[in-house]
Structure formats: C-alpha cells, structure tokens
C-alpha cells in the first residue's frame, strides 16, 4: 500500500492522529502537497461519501472521517501557494429566524465541509438580513437555509427578495431544507434547490456551483 493509499485508508477509518502522522511523513519524503490532498485525503473522503450512501458507514463515522481529512488538510494547506488550495465553493448556512432547530442544519454543514466546501455556519435564529450580509462578507456561492417549523419557513422568501434587491441573486444560489419543506415549496418561493437530507444536500450543492 502506497503512503497515499494509507492516508486515504486513515480518512476512511476516521483516525485523525494517524492521518496527520502519515501526512507529515509524506511531506517529509517529498510527495507533492496537491498530490496528498487529491490522491490521498480527498480520495479517502470520496469513498466515505459513497459508503455512507450505501449504508456501509454511519453518520458519526463520517464525521470522524471529516475530522481526519482536516487533520491532514491543515498540515498541507500552509504549503500551498495562495489560491491553489482546492475548494468547491463557499456556503453560508443557518436556521431561519425564530427557529432553534439546528441538528439537521449542522449535519449539512459537516457534510459540505467534508466534501470540500468552505462552510460559514451562522447558527440558529438567523435573520434574512444576516444571511445576506454573511454572503456578501464571505463572497459566498450558496446560502443554505433551514427551518423545522411551518411558522418560520415563511421567512425564507425574504432571504431571496433581499438577495434580489441587493443585486446578488445571480451570484448566490439558495438551497433550502427541513422537515416541513418540499421541492414544491422551493419552486414556489424561487429557491434554486431543495435537499431532503445531508447526503443529498452535498449532491445538490455540487450541482449548484
């Protein structure tokens, strides 16, 4: 097994210390940093995503794999010249104002991060204004908006209206999710996409950027 295979395997096993040690060893022996990321760390995480989808891996294991991924990425990143660090894009996510339900939204954040997105997690009870401001500040590609209640989901159109009035609607895609939502509701309020769960959220985000 090559050292890159071992790194990928370490990510699959969710062993952060092992991945960090192997990454150091690879760097010391002159493996190109980008090679470590693409053919070791990200390759392993890709397999994790597939195994989660087929039911061979479970959520906490995926999260530990994500942490192992970032244990390696953290070591490689400083060695890359600016801009060469691969990122799929930036997503600003949060639970809409008046709603404190955030476990599902946090899951989406962790899964997006694990798959290579930069995630800005605004937490819960986030006003439409804060969503749009954060999108501006972080030069975001996506806003991910979550709601658990029918009484709070009705604020989601405000996020979209605000993006329009700020002239950002063409630049920032909006994806929504949460128990009372549906593809039909997404279409009705003019959101770009709906995802029923965190795995699908990653697929949807990949399509949007």
């Amino acid at each position: 097994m090559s050292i890159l295979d071992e790194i990928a395997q370490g990510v699959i096993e969710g062993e952060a210390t092992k991945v960090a040690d192997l990454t150091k060893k690879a760097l010391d022996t002159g493996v190109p940093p980008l090679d470590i990321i693409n053919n070791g760390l990200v390759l392993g995480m890709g397999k994790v995503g597939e195994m989660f989808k087929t039911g061979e891996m479970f959520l906490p294991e995926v999260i530990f794999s994500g942490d192992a991924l970032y244990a390696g990425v953290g070591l490689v990143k400083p060695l890359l010249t600016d801009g060469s660090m691969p990122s799929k894009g930036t997503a600003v996510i949060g639970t809409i104002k008046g709603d404190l339900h955030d476990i599902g939204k946090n899951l989406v954040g962790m899964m997006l991060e694990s798959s290579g997105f930069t995630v800005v997690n605004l937490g819960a009870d986030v006003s439409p204004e804060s969503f749009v401001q954060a999108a501006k500040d972080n030069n975001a590609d996506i806003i991910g908006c979550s709601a658990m209640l029918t009484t709070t989901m009705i604020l989601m159109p405000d996020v979209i209206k605000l993006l329009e009035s700020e002239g950002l609607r063409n630049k920032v895609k909006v994806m929504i999710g949460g128990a009372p939502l549906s593809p039909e509701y997404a279409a009705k309020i003019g959101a770009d996409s709906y995802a029923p769960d965190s795995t699908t959220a990653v697929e949807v985000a990949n399509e949007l950027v």
Partner: protein
Amino acid sequence: MKSQFVKSRYEANEAVQFNVLSDNQCEEIFHSAMEVLRRTGSKVYDPDSRDLLKKGGAFVDGEVVKFPSALIEWAVRTAPSRVVLCDRNGKAKLFLEGKNVYFGPGPSNNFVLDPFTGERREPTTEDTVRAAKCCDYLPNIDYAMDMGTVRNVNLTLSDVYSFEALLTNTTKPIVHWGFDIPQYQDILEMCIAVAGSLEELQKNPFIAMYSEPLPPLRHSREAIAKAVFVAEKGLPLIYTPCTMAGATTPATMAGTIVLQVAESLVGLVAAQLKREGTPFIMGGLISIMDMSSTILSYGAPELALLSAGMSNVAQYMKIPVFSTGGCTDAKTLDAQAAIQGAMSILMAAQSGASLVHDCGYIEYGSTSSTEMLVMDDEIIGMVKRIMRGVEVNDETLAVDVIDSVGPGGHFLRTQHTRNYFKKETWYPSLIDRKVYEGWRAEGNKTMGARIKEKTQMIINEHNPEKLPEATLNSIKAIIQRAEQREAAQV
C-alpha cells in the same frame, strides 16, 4: 445523579422480562397438574411404556396410568435444568437455561406458500432445502425445522427425506420429528454418520427430537415410544402437547396450563425412568379454539399469554421450555401476519421461553412461508435489542459528555457517540427508515416486496456449508436401506 452507594437496582435492573405468574401461582399450577395425574391419570397406549411407568411406581389399570406425586417430583429433580444444543460441527450454540430465548421455525405443515409463484401448494423436498437455506442464512433464526411434510417422496419416509434436506443444507441445530421408531432409527443413523459415533452425538448433540401426546390425557403408542427411544439414546427430548382452550382443555387460561403441564409430565416421567438425567424440554403449543371458525389459533393474544404462563411454570420447575411465536392465522403475508408475528415474538422473549418455534407459520399453522420466516427474523432483531435493556453505569450515564457538549451543542462529534452508537442501536435490514425521497428512489417498495426480494435472494444465492462427500454417501445409503425396509412391508 448516581448514588454514591450501590443500590439493589444497580445490580439487577437489566431485565426487560416479565412474569405472567408469580411463584405461588406456578406452584398451584404444578400441584394441580400433579393432582390431575394422581386422580384422573392418563391413557398410555404403549404397553412397554406402561411397564416402564409401573416399575417406576405408577399405578396401571388397563391403559390408564396414575402417577404418585413423589414419582413426578423425582423426575422433575432428575431432569437437567439446562440443555445445550450444538451446531452440526459440534460447537455449542444454544444454551437452554435461565431466561435465554432462541427462535426457529416449525414442522410438518400441509402446505407451503411458494415465495416465487405465490402459490399455496403441497410441500416437496425442494421446499425443505429452501427452509434449511433460510434458517442457515438468517442471523436471528437459531435452529432449523422442516416447515412442511414433503409429498414428493415415499410418504412413510417423508420425515426421513426432510431430515436429509435439513442436515445437508444447514449447520444450525435441528429440531425434528418422525412417524415411528424405524424412522427415528434412520434419523439417528444419519446424525451418527455426521457426528462419528453415538457418544460424540450425546456429548455435543445437534438434534432435539420431539413427539406429541393427544390431549386431553392420551399418549399414543408412537408418541410415548418415540420419547422413550430418544431417552434411551441419551439425546435431547421435546415432549410437546398441542392444546386448544375450550376444546381439548378447559376454557380458562389456568386450567389450560394445568393440563398442558400434566401432558408434558407423563413424557418427562417415562423419559427419566428410561434414562435418568435425559435432557428434557417441555412443551409446547398452547392456544385457544376459535369458537366461530373452529381453528386452533396461531395468532390469538391468548397464545402469547398462555405460552408465557407455561414458560413461567417451566422456569419454576427448572426445565427448559418449547414455546411458540412468530406465527399467524393470516393466509398471506399481510398486516395481520405482521401484527400477530410481532406480538407473540415479543411476549415469548419477555417471558424467557427457551426454544420458541413456529416462526414462518401462516394460516393457523396449516401453511408455512419462508417469507414469514424472513419477516420474523427482522422482528426478532428488534425484540433482541429491547431484551438487551438499558445498561446503567458511569460510562452510559454520560454526565461528563453532556457537560462537555453543553446547551445547544450536539453529540455527533463526540468519541462517546462513536464508541456507543452501534452498540446501543439496532439497525434494520428490511424495515424502511429512509427519508421519503430515498424510499422513492428505490422504487416505492412495500415491506412485503422487500421481504419477497430478500427471500428469493437467500434461496437463489446462499450456499450453506457442505458435508464431506463420504458423509453424504453414508446418508444416501441409510435412505436406501429405509426404502428397502418400507418396500418389504407392503
């Protein structure tokens, strides 16, 4: 917060079991069963067995045998409180003791529901092969039975042929039956061909043989003779009456259990007199007659209740029990089948019945269904999780973890969750817990459709461990001899 001191509940709170009967009630039922056998006695149609009972101290008057209570109490004490059943390779698998519970199918149905065609038809040896494969594959089915009396062979050797199909297609322990002593001899020889010798088979038995008396209070020549035969060979014996409250026993639950226990006791005494210490498992099927349709119900709430009561009495007597669960009166694998199967399995597990049989029975036992067996396997998985209970200690109370996560945090990223989520949680293989879109993406399949797919997959793809060629040839030769014997009798 956890107590500083050890409290009794920290020592003994893992039980999810319940008792239908108190120890005092069990004693009353046991005493009543002994009184029935003392006062009324039983008809025993086998002269050799009557002689055996007479020599042991029973009173014989014609065909009626009456039992002194001391003789019964001696037999109860003599029977072991635990019976261990092994797999075909001699490895101990089932420990019938305490409140351990194991599940398996049932025997000798008149029809099978074909999992490929949906047809209800007479069983063939190919169906026994299918049943054996399913038992072998399914993780929560602990032993095998034939699931149908096969009709495509010499009918007087149906039991021998179905045993061959079981023996050659699963390594799991087998519970089987036979028509009469010659067939028992054939079956025993096949077991010896696998084990190497009778002594090896006695040391690590992979078979338990059962026979059934005819309630109320009748023991046919074959039933009692077969029980005595198994005892003589020193192998595990199941004596299992099949009672119908209101018809072959009183309509009351207590009276039905009294008679059920009394029937088993006759087999127990005969077996212990033949060979002291015979591994004995008392039975068996205990339910009501539906006074509207006249069926013996395999899904009545009373089946679960009576079985639990019988199990409690068996536990009081310290004798393992052959109980019933996972069966239904439904004619097909529908919502009724799921309701009746699930309820009886849960009750059987909670009552600590040792050997629960008749998983896979539909149509009040008249028909068997491998699909029902596959569904039961999933139900048993859920029930086994419940039976593991709630483990309470410092580590599982997790106060430190709760503190480290704090208000509004989540537990998904903690090492504690990583360590425990799999151990503490049951995951389904058939029950659907996908999100709606995931379920749609896989074709909107109902539970029934998923069960059918899995059943067909097992039958088409599962390859059980094979017996060595030489053993297979010995088994074939035993069947040939049996055929010659039967031909000579015509």
